[in-house]
């Protein structure tokens, strides 16, 4: 797997807007590079979405990286769509990588 190098310019708010507008859509090459870097999470700390039994609500959770461990449910309330969960994941990863909150609204 190729490691994607990112400079400060990769964290362009325009890319954030592109993703938040259509989080499950086809990304531009620049957004894809950013998303690939964000998605390079080891099993410990990996963000996932847990669907409930009806597939109607979705919660964020973090894997511990240990086999058999129950994922740690994130404090955010459940989402009603995968797209909404994807936006929340993007914001969390943005903060992990930049140290700052993504303040734009969408």
């Amino acid at each position, binding site marked *: 797997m190729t490691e994607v190098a990112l400079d400060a310019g990769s964290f362009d708010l325009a890319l954030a807007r592109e993703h938040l507008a259509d989080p499950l859509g086809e990304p531009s090459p620049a957004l894809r590079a950013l998303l690939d870097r964000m998605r390079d999470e080891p*099993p410990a700390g990996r*963000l996932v*979405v*847990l669907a*409930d039994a009806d*597939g109607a609500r979705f919660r964020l959770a973090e894997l511990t990286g240990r086999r*058999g461990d129950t994922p740690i449910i994130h404090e955010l309330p459940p989402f009603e769509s995968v797209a909404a*969960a994807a936006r929340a*994941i993007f914001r969390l990863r943005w903060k992990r990588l930049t140290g700052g909150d993504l303040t734009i609204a969408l």
Partner: protein
Amino acid sequence: MDIIGYADRWSVVPGETLTLHVSCAWPARYEADVVRLRGGPTTRDSDAVDETHVDTVIDGVHEGGPQATDCGSYALLPADPRLFDPNGFAIELLVWPTMPSKPRQILAAQAWKAAGFVLGLVDGRAMLRLGDGTELRAAAPLLGRRWYRLRARCDVGGDELSLVVEAIDPRDGIAPWRATTRGGARYVPARGASMSFAARLDATTRISCDHFNGKLEAPRLASATGESIAAWSFSLDMSGDVMIDSGPNALHGRLVNLPTRAVTGANWRAEGVHWRDAPWTYDAAHFHEDDLYDAGWLPSFTWTVPDDFQSGVYAVRLRLGDAEDRVPVFVRPKPGQATAPVAVLLPTATYMAYSNDHQAFDKPHPERSIGRPIVLQPADLLLHRHRELGLSLYDRHADGSGVCHSSRLRPTLTQRPKYRRWDGADGVGLRWFGLDLLLIGWLEQLGQAYDVVTDEDLDRDGEALLAPYRVVLTGNQPEYVSTRMLDALQGYVGTGGRLMYLGGNGFYWRIAFHPTRPGVIELRRGHDGAGPWLSEPGEAHHAFTGEPGGTWRTLGRPPQALVGVGFVVEGFTRSGPYERVPLREARRWSFVFAGIEGRRIGAQGLSGGGAAGIEMDRTDPELGTPSDAIVLARAQLPSIHYQGCILEELAGNGLPLCGEMVIFARPGAGGVFATGSIAWIGALPCDDFCNDVATVTANVLRRFLDSAPL
């Protein structure tokens, strides 16, 4: 998922009896019945499957409770007086630990309460302990993936207890470690106890525990004075489940849960890469704490399939409160009694290969390949928490080695009608069995009579299984194929049979079914192909059959030679349409697109929004695509997330990555139609089965059913 179960077989004929094994989260009364499955979920928001209850004798309430799974491989010898010398013992073996840091691992045990002995590893340090508590423990831990010889001896007469650890590879520069005690120890043989290697049986539950991870070789047991009692071998009867004793007493052991055989031993020097060529270098077995062949649950109830049952896809439905499980059952016709001109060959080897995988949890970067968040289902979480339900061929064992066995004798929770898969592309998220139910739904809607048969049946019965059928349809991903299956399909097509390959990534890996044990496949991936792990050096030949493993392409029988196309590219985000291409021999093949207007086919679908996607195949004349194969349509990559498979990068012929739909005739009235896309079947149900993909599929099926030469 408070109730789960499995049956002792997936494929049955009317009149045969199934045994169901059911586990409830607590002691409870649960309901069971049989449903016929006539289709799968066709919307993202609904779990509804097209199923109808069938009256059977199992209807009603059953008593259940939690069932324990004996997971992890080991060797077991029943108690036998010849195993014991009242004056002591001498035991010796070679060991190659793969998880030396695991706190407690049993190498050999013959113990009961204060009697007997245990030889093991404690935090990686070799340890010998007698039943009276006397213990010797090596000063330093063993290194991982290094061979050591361990020798332990207890001589009551000489009042001596000793343990010796020697590194086999001198390059490690580890000096032998020896410890001896004299006096104070009291040894009492555990006369009524069984003897085990690589684990011990818990005295209360009789479930194995304290498993060793790694290879063992050449265990030897002798009396205190050195007289041989047993000399076990792992290089004999390679496909069997017996640890053969070539010593004087023939004290054979039973291998439980399929430790990996045909693995290299301490003296392997690449003199031969096949265990048959240099068996003395393959005298080891690799044990894993998470090996599983048969979950071994107690039988819950049996069901004899009535004689008048139609061939089709059924499930035993188990319900406990709001929880439910559907255990698939495929009813095939009795031998020689085909009931329809069409057979659906359900790719159950592929179902087995992917059963209970943990890639979302363990694989590096799984989200990159799907381009969206990983969405886990309750079944995924249950499988993660209960690793004792076994692994898939896409997993690695806890010690990092690739999983090369997969069995259906356990709850296979990723092969359920409603199971939504995180890499199932945008849409209904169905893969494997769940997606194939949409093909069943299309046949039902079409009113086309069909029988169902499975890979396991094809491996057992060969071409004779398919011969009665005018047309054979595959599922969406017939990826895992044994030699007998491939021979049978080639024979079928070569003798007038007509094959509709309605999937992608088909006929890709060679697998082997076990020659005698039901319901388990072996995969040696070799050193190429689009897989999650490689075989260890020298371990690329199946133990079940002796055949070399790997992709059929590198074994010289590429899928292009059977169906015209072979796997080249994958992505798990979205799917796209095909574009028709100008046809050679247009009049001959025009039936394919009868009733279709425009050049675009499959612009909608439940598997990614199109008919072409997830994994796609293309033609390649150098790999055997017949020269008379007609490319009907071509699909470009639907997303930038698609990547060429590794074999294309390493050994491709420079052809563009795309998906291709082909058709061709075979001598003797045979024929092949191939869609080369996993997403194809997912496009069948759109607009209530009134769409261009359904039309093309029906056009081909109708023409293939017509016995006139193509």
